[in-house]
């Protein structure tokens, strides 16, 4: 187990236990690892890298309940990344553009690239297309940082409807990305 593995796992477990600042650090560091990993492998598609980093972050977030604490985090993230990447390459039949084979999961946490480039696809636009019952909870809770209770009062929904709206909205966002590409 590398240091990256131990550190990221600790941050994710903190996040899963409800520590949102640990979770923030987890996602931030993960995005660096993903970016470096993808830049090395998609040399011929450099403009796709940031879109993919975002798609993968969203996928990891939406599937975070599937992480088994007894399992190496590298294998978990790597499998999600490979699944999404193969999906994308299949859609575009760009398999030949893959520079490096996708079979070295040990590489995943070995490098990091903290320099975020601009994504081509703007998630904010996709977000704007979501129905109100999903869009408003995401805007108030996840972007403006209001509590679930405040949001519920503000937009006249029940608290559980707000939570469901956030969850379904982020899942719908991932589905929109998939159908777009």
């Amino acid at each position, binding site marked *: 187990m590398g240091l990256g593995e131990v550190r990221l796992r600790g941050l994710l477990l903190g*996040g*899963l*236990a*409800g520590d*949102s*600042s640990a*979770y*923030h650090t987890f*996602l*931030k560091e993960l*995005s660096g690892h993903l*970016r470096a990993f993808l830049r090395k492998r998609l040399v011929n598609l450099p403009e796709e890298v*940031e879109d993919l*980093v*975002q798609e993968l*972050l*969203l*996928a990891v*977030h*939406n*599937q*975070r*309940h*599937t*992480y*088994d*604490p007894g*399992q*190496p985090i590298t*294998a*978990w*993230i*790597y*499998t*999600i990344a*490979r*699944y999404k990447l193969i*999906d994308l390459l299949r859609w575009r039949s760009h398999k030949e553009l893959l520079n490096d084979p996708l079979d070295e999961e040990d590489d995943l946490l070995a490098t990091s690239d903290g320099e*975020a480039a*601009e*994504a081509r696809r*703007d*998630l*904010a636009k996709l*977000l704007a297309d979501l129905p109100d019952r999903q869009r408003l909870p*995401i805007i108030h*809770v*996840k*972007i403006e*940082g*209001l*509590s*679930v209770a405040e949001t519920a009062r503000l937009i006249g929904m029940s608290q559980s409807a707000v939570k469901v709206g*956030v969850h379904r909205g*982020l899942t719908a966002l*991932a589905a929109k990305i998939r159908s777009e590409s």
Partner: protein
Amino acid sequence: MNTDELVSLLATGSEAVDTRLPMRRYLIAVVAGTAVATLLTAEWLGFRPTLVRDLSVPMFWAKEAFCAALGAAGLVAVARLARPGSRLGWVRAAVAAPVIAMWLLAAVALFVANPQNHAELIFGQTASVCPFIIALISTPLFVGIFGAMRGLAPTRLRLAGAAGGFAAGSVGALAYSLHCPELAAPFLGIWYVLGILIPTAFGAWAGPRLLHW
């Protein structure tokens, strides 16, 4: 939206997540599916009248153990395949072992039997319907298991679908065995296995269609 903004969005207001919940849902789906399959057997076909007497017949227990072992292996395979990055490991051997054991038992049964009894050992009374009834009775399990898998994140969709169908078929066969009058190992080794393979094949077909995310 740049990536740092997305990271903030995802982290803001994130609450604790119960990582045991998906497995709890899976267990409930399996228990409920088994209950419906058993009820279906009891109401539609009826438990076999000799059921109590069979409890002292070793081959009855071999049949139950066969279905239960396949079902357990299939259910563990599903639990693993439904999470990214889990490996099947010994589960592959656990799926194959009961089938090989039953085939060995069948070979012995055919070897020691008078050749004119072979057809009876292989076809019994119900060979023409057995696989289809097993497939039908496993339907509620199939639905429950696929529902639970859809709440997780399988990445090998065809294999995960096949495992779901296999687990459903095996537990369905266990429920059906409470009606089924057959106890010959050659019969079980052929027709039960075929009955389990029907939902397995259907699962392999349905996996990429129903389980993608």
